């Protein structure tokens, strides 16, 4: 069985069909590339072949490169191995592009057309870009684009160089720098592909084009004499402004922490100044440097490989299929309403309960508002809206819960209230129903005491806003059984989010790490560190929000509430008195955060954030000598990372992949690092211990290196080797 096969018809048209055995989607491997190379050679050498159609035997063209191939190239050959491998790819694609034509006269080549039945991503588009024409089937579900940047690399098989020369730097930027994907019509409008035809006519049209193609149709603009880059090359007056702006925008947007965006832009700039083949070599060198950068390894690992593994149930216990058919959601506040929407949108029947009918109705109306927004953006049809809303029953009547196989309780964070709900629910649902609580602060094992079936009681912690956030944290209480975990995982899979499963402990995993991050930021303000430095330092290390902005968003009174509860639980060992001084004072002044239009930041009447609150400087004057940027960053990062390590040490986390994926998706932990454990592997345990020792000496025991980290430093270990997971069949 091979990935590529070729047949030649009586008109001399060779059709090369990509159809990787035993996969639903084509991905490119080194073996596949070699096969393709051989077939192209054969077709070009065969005098009976007039032209070539390159297409797919599947409903889609291709999903991209097999990222494991890249990992293997790096492991086996280092930089040289990658560079040589990439240059071989360039040679093959360049051979397709020149198609046997005389390099001087540009005549005598054989037309090669890419016929795309569906999705074409990454190398699945770079390969067509080397062909002479790209025709796509009119398939609205198809996605066409170059999403490499999303996992920390960039299109490195000529896609960068070809697209920039085809569209110009400005027009190519959204596809390269943002990984923008389009449907075939959008791709045609954007200039990436040449033609969209009805699906049934794809191959016929491709053949027609090949039969009618003239020599000039095969010559790429950049191979023709007098080529000028659309929009201007870097030292053309218009191009100059584009490139000046591009550097600034990319730098500002990436805060300088994502090597791929920088490398991409450098490849574009340097490539624009030289002939095409030299540009490919430049692209290969930058691409190699990105693949050799530990950040790209970490990003691919967390954002692609491990995210997918977790979504496919890497940590799902053995249990029969637990697909949810009817979910009962108790509490129609912001969280409950959001959970109702994502559930109904995934085709699950929803009963949305609140104590008052109008509250329940308001919860359902939230779904309507999201769907209306979708209609106005033409992402949702009115039929689809009716269908989704039709699945939601908003009521006060608990008996409506009969037949539910999953309950998600999202009522007020109060043990007593939650216990009452648990009892009321269990009185009406069937014996197999799983009960999940969406708490963010209360221990699952304590809440489970109110349940008659604690083995069917579990925590499912959603993040706000539910429809936007990608992560769901599943919490296994002391008595939670495997079927409950499987149920939660199957449910999360249905609503197309990424799950992590953690054990029950204070604040579970995500909040456990976020709270110290916020606290460290506030503590610095109390110490006289300029608040702007705190916020900027966070962003410069890749955090999406500075700690002060984050606490404004989540609300300062919630912070006060958590602090009080934590203090009560910890007694004398409570370490955050300095933080509370600031936090409580803010709350006392009515500065409760964004919702109050007043917090660490000022807001205008419309609630738009203006700048840091001026009163802050008066109450906590900035010290004359400010700490350097890196020490502020170390404090902010270590505050989170050490909690992750402790969570692992204590068995709250059982899989570092979940620790990393959860951190990046849950609270945006420096995605360039792949997550807290990815970051520790990048800097090394020994360096991490050094930082901890220094921070502990100057800022206190909260930075003391955990024993696990010290042990790893002593042994020179990496997290992803010490805690390597054996791949489980997904």
């Amino acid at each position: 069985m091979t990935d590529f096969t070729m047949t030649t018809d009586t008109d001399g048209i060779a059709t090369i069909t990509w159809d990787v055995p035993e996969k639903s989607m084509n991905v490119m491997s080194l073996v596949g590339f070699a096969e393709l190379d051989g077939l192209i050679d054969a077709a070009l050498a065969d005098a009976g072949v007039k032209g070539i159609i390159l297409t797919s035997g599947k409903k889609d063209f291709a999903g991209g490169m097999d990222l494991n191939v890249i990992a293997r190239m790096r492991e086996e050959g280092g930089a040289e191995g990658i560079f040589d491998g990439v240059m071989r790819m360039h040679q093959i694609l360049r051979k397709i592009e020149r198609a046997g034509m005389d390099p001087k006269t540009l005549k005598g080549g054989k037309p090669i057309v890419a016929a795309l039945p569906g999705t074409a991503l990454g190398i699945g588009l770079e390969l067509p870009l080397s062909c002479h024409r790209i025709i796509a089937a009119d398939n609205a579900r198809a996605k066409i684009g170059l999403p490499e940047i999303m996992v920390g690399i960039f299109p490195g098989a000529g896609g960068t160089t070809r697209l920039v020369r085809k569209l110009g730097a400005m027009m190519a930027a959204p596809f390269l720098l943002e990984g923008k994907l389009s449907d075939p019509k959008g791709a045609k409008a954007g200039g990436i592909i040449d033609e969209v035809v009805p699906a049934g006519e794809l191959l016929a049209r491709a053949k027609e084009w090949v039969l009618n193609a003239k020599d000039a149709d095969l010559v790429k603009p950049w191979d023709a004499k007098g080529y000028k880059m659309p929009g201007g090359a870097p030292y053309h007056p218009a191009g100059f402004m584009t490139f000046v702006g591009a550097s600034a925008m990319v730098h500002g947007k990436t805060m300088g922490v994502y090597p791929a965006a920088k490398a991409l832009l450098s490849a574009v700039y340097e490539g624009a100044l030289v002939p095409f083949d030299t540009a490919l070599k430049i692209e290969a060198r930058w691409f190699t440097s990105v693949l050799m950068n530990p950040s790209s390894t970490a990003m691919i690992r967390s954002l692609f490989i491990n995210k997918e593994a977790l979504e496919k149930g890497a940590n799902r216990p053995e249990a029969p299929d637990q697909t949810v058919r009817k979910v009962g959601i108790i509490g129609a506040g912001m969280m409950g309403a959001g959970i109702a929407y994502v559930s109904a949108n995934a085709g699950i029947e929803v009963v949305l309960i609140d104590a008052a009918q109008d509250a329940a109705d308001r919860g359902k109306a939230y779904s309507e508002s999201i769907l209306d927004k979708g209609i106005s953006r033409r992402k949702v049809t009115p039929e689809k809206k009716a269908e989704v809303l039709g699945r939601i029953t908003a009521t006060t009547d608990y008996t409506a819960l009969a037949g539910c196989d999953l309950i998600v309780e999202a009522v007020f964070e109060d043990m007593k209230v939650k216990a009452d709900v648990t009892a009321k629910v269990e009185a009406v649902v069937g014996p197999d129903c799983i009960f999940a609580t969406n708490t963010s602060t209360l221990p699952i094992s304590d809440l489970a005491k109110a349940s008659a079936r604690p083995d069917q009681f579990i925590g499912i912690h959603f993040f706000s806003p539910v429809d936007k956030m990608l992560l769901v944290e599943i919490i296994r209480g002391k008595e939670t059984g495997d079927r409950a975990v499987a149920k939660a995982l199957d449910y999360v899979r249905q609503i197309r989010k990424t799950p992590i499963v953690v054990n029950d402990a204070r604040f579970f995993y995500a909040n456990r790490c976020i709270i110290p991050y916020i606290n460290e930021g506030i503590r610095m303000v109390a110490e006289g560190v300029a608040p702007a430095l705190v916020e900027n330092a966070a962003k410069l290390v890749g955090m999406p929000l500075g700690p002060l902005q984050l606490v404004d968003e989540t609300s300062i009174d919630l912070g006060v509430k958590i602090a009080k509860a934590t203090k009560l639980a910890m007694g004398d060992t409570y370490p955050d008195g300095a933080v509370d001084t600031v936090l409580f004072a803010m709350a006392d002044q009515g500065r409760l955060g964004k919702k109050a239009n007043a917090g660490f930041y000022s807001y205008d009447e419309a609630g738009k954030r203006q700048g840091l609150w001026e009163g802050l400087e008066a109450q906590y004057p900035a010290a004359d000598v400010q700490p350097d940027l890196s020490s502020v960053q170390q404090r902010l990062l270590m505050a989170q990372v050490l909690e992750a390590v402790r969570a692992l040490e204590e068995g709250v986390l059982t899989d570092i992949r979940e620790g990393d994926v959860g951190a990046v998706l849950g609270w945006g932990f420096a995605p360039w690092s792949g997550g807290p454990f990815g970051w520790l592997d990048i800097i090394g345990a020994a360096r991490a211990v050094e930082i901890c020792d220094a921070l502990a000496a100057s800022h206190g025991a909260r930075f003391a290196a955990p024993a696990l980290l010290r042990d790893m430093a002593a042994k020179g270990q990496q997290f992803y080797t010490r805690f390597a997971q054996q791949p489980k069949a997904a």
Partner: protein
Amino acid sequence: MTEAYIYDAVRTPRGKGRPDGALHELTSVALSANILNAVKDRNGLQGHAVEDVIWGNVTQVGEQGGCLARSAVLLSELDQSIPGLAINRFCASGMEAVNLAANQIRGGAGHAYIAGGVEMMGRVAMGSDGAAIAVDPSLAMKTYFVPQGISADIIATQYGFTRDQADALAVESQRRAAEAWAAGRFANSVVPVRDRNGLTILDHDEYMRPGTDMQALGALKASFKDMGEVMPGFDKIALMKYPHLERIEHIHHAGNSSGIVDGAAAVLIGNAEFGRAHGLKPRARIRATAKIGTDPTIMLTGPVPVTEKILKDSGMSISDIDLFEVNEAFASVVLRFMQAFDVDPAKVNPNGGSIAMGHPLGATGAIIIGTLLDELERTGKGTGLATLCIASGMGAATIIERV
């Protein structure tokens, strides 16, 4: 060590650097030749009288390209045995030409030089020579590149200068320049530009706006706010480099930044023997020269460290300096200089500066050395320091002493 002396310093009047500016009809080479001829005529230079012409110029493309110095020599009435060296240290090119000449003389390489520069900003647009630091992503990101106007606004933000302070400095520059012209203080140095028929093209600095007041400046829109805050968002880059700042205050505009003008200047520098041989009297000794590199993002703070360096190198202190010329590239540059050294504003740019009269990039460094010398002579003072901020984060300075 051989001493280097200034024997003469001349400049053209500065024309508006626009198509309707008075000097716009002249080529860069012609304006250069014009001022070189003035030096030749005023000092009776014949044959291989000087070792070289070192000519500062920033935008060395088109008519300013191709070793403009050599072209200028050949178009002038100087002897063809005098070669010509075109140099570029951005805004300090004219000063660097003087410093290079002085240091070669001090080192024994030749008896005399003509050093100066030219910039026809209305004919060869600033930036039209390209600049990797702005456009090459590897370099732009490594250096946190922002345009100069943003850098000037970073200085204002970092050191706490307000729009009012900047505008007040601009108003004072205009007032002093107008007063200096009215009193004829530039008469000895400004050589009117004449056409081939001897008809005057320009005999005064035409960029000046005498009578400019706070109210007039208050109406001007900040020039760099949009590029900083909106497209492409340079403030974000500035804050990445200066993360303790929350935002950049945009205080600079056309009225408190240097003017875009055409102009040229030349300084005749030689050793003592040259003076004796030509019957010329030295006016001042070039006591010290210095240059330095600084952070390229804030870019324009160079006058402070380069002044510290030149004082240290020459064993002097700030109180030894009687008068200062600090190029008014942007108001905040001068405000920062005065703040750092706590000098009396009356001693800094006493006859106005580039905000009032304009800043012909390649020439300004030579212009301010001449202006400084004139004022030392007029006031009977001894020692002066001239300094400029420089693109990409540099600074240059010269100390002169009357003899």
